[in-house]
């Protein structure tokens, strides 16, 4: 596959691995967080950890929109769909299996008669509303800054068309405020408890917001940030750049993903988003609890297409299982195998906490791709 395989080249990876091992100071440890689930997936899928020296550790951050979506928000959609037979809920495929209250998920609600459909884009949801004028089509919108502009666009289109049977249940969240929450967490701030030496910055999110928003973290918290693409060689190169920054005592925003990310980002998309959305005062993140100014809501001029206003939906917070360690795992305080529930009560088929929900979550990635590392190697099987 042209333009993709080049970024997955095993020979180049081996060279980069050598370079990282050479440059990493054997007298110290390095702990970097990849914020995005896309990076977590690439690291697990391609076995990037096997190519890193033992003193370079990756912490899997909270950048998986499905994972951090609080149960209460899915409950809102399920309650609406089950109580109003005229409502059709449509959303992205990976939302459908997220477990909600009462043993339900959107998929299970569908089996109980709710009209729940999978769409591939916000535009598909809008088209569905046009196709089904007798039904109330609600787009359950989730995602970080990458999926927000398309939602903004369909809201503007719905307004322009005067499409009365379409609305959006908005769950869009913001990357910088989540990074800030992690940096402000007691374990990270009290030096030494959780070492966090730098971030691999988001790939797709940064194409929209640009590299500028991360400057604050680099300056204020003295943490280097390297924005990287989602291919495994991107990740390796970013790790090498982070190692160099740490070695040289620098804390800067660097851009490995120059083929897609600029300093300013996509100004047109940013303008569109601010026309349609405004900041929520606070929003619950699964695993991080309430995070101030971390999510978007639909502005008043678009209230007629805001499902929360239109159907009078109330958010009720639902706590995770008491033994769930997702919050600590997301901050790098614990690893998946430190959690009592991991692999026993909590599996990808029956996720109890946010990190197990989507394959981009730290626990699901470890369960699906890495749990062979937790068991002793049987004689004759190692290579």
């Amino acid at each position: 596959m042209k333009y993709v395989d080049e970024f997955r080249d095993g020979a180049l990876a081996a060279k980069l691995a050598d370079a990282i091992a050479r440059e990493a100071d054997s007298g110290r440890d390095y702990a970097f967080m990849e914020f995005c689930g896309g990076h977590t997936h690439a690291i697990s899928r391609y076995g990037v950890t096997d190519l890193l020296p033992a003193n370079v550790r990756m912490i899997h951050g909270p950048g998986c929109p499905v994972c951090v979506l609080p149960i209460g928000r899915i409950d809102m959609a399920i309650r609406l769909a089950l109580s109003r037979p005229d409502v059709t809920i449509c959303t992205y495929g990976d939302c459908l299996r997220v477990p909600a209250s009462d043993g339900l998920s959107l998929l299970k609600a569908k089996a109980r008669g709710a009209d729940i459909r999978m769409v591939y884009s916000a535009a598909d949801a809008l088209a569905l509303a046009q196709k089904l004028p007798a039904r109330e089509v609600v787009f359950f919108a989730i995602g970080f800054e990458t999926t927000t502009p398309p939602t903004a666009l369909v809201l503007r289109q719905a307004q322009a068309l005067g499409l009365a049977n379409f609305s959006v249940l908005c769950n869009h969240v913001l990357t910088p405020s989540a990074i800030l929450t992690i940096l402000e967490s007691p374990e990270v701030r009290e030096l030494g408890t959780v070492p966090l030496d730098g971030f691999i910055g988001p790939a797709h999110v940064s194409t929209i917001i640009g590299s500028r928003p991360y400057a604050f973290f680099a300056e204020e918290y003295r943490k280097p940030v390297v924005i990287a693409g989602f291919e495994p060689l991107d990740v390796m190169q970013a790790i090498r750049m982070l190692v160099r920054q740490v070695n040289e005592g620098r804390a800067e925003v660097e851009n490995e993903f120059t083929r897609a990310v600029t300093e300013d980002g996509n100004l047109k998309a940013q303008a569109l988003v601010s026309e349609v959305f405004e900041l929520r005062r606070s929003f619950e993140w699964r695993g991080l609890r309430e995070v101030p100014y971390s999510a978007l809501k639909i502005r008043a001029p678009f209230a007629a297409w805001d499902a929360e206003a239109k159907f009078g939906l109330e958010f009720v917070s639902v706590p995770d299982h008491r033994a769930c360690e997702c919050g600590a795992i997301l901050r790098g305080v614990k690893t998946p195998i430190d959690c009592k529930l991991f692999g026993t009560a909590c599996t990808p088929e029956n996720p109890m906490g946010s990190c197990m929900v989507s394959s981009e979550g730290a626990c699901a990635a470890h369960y699906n791709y890495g749990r062979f590392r937790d068991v002793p190697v049987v004689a004759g099987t190692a290579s």
Partner: protein
Amino acid sequence: MSFAGTIRKGYVRPLDLKHGRVDMGHGAGGRAMAQLISELFAAAFANEHLDRGDDAAVLPAPAAGERLVVATDAHVVSPLFFPGGDIGCLSVHGTINDLAVMGARPLYLAASFILEEGFPLADLARIVQSMAHASREAGVPVVTGDTKVVEQGKGDGVFITTTGVGALPAGRDIGGANARPGDAILVSGSLGDHGMAIMAQRESLAFDSEIVSDTVALHGLVAAMLAAVPTIRVLRDPTRGGLATTLNEIATQSGVGMELDEASIPVQPQVAAACELLGLDPLYVANEGKLIAICPQEDAERLLAAMRAHSLGERAARIGTVTADPNAFVQIRTAFGGRRMVDWLSGEQLPRIC
């Protein structure tokens, strides 16, 4: 003389296979059903057993020492017609392959149709013709069948269940529990073709691709493989859940681990590209014309040569080794240079593919 016999032949209007539609009468057990059966099913599948028109087929016993093998498979694929095939030939290939990978010689098929009221007879005829063609090509006749009609909205056009009967020679023991540490793992060709051919046809995706389903009957290939290497321990067709799921099934059944080499697993570039676009892993995508074979290490090259010598195994490859691992983990050395697990499929959002 029956009443029906008094009707002049030309007086009964034949089925309107151009514009007609399935109605409840076609499943009611009356003359409409008899007409559908005789003009469509019996005409297409004609063979000495079916032609008797009895409630069941009476078949000769297999050769002395041979055992009977039975497999059944329901087919609910959507869309019904896809590049490279349709639900008709798929329902023949699927069941024949289930018999073939047991090492059995497929002998007969039974077919059961659930039709939805309103389904175009033209489409039904196309499906039945395709099924009859596949059955004749494979040399495995449909010897008995059944038809039911459900009300509109209670089916999805047509569902087909086929049951196959085969004969297993004495002493042959092929099964998922037979893999041993050190054995070689082979596949007969490129993976993911069927699943991606179906995905590309989905109305909501509708991307242009040249991906064609690999649906085909594999008993000829299996016979050639067994003739060359009778020591084959495991054969299985990686349908739903793809290679990954099938290997996990075998690992669990045999109580062994597996180690695959990603670079050696054949995937067509257009399938790899479509998977990339949709965020799917070709190892989990369905196949309908491929098989996995596990044999002792020392026979692997001979088996590979036998597979490659057959038209359905030209792109066969040796993809890994069975290991001793009580956890039954399937692991892969990635082309990138790392290692990871290839776990059971967990709840992927895939459409009905078979």
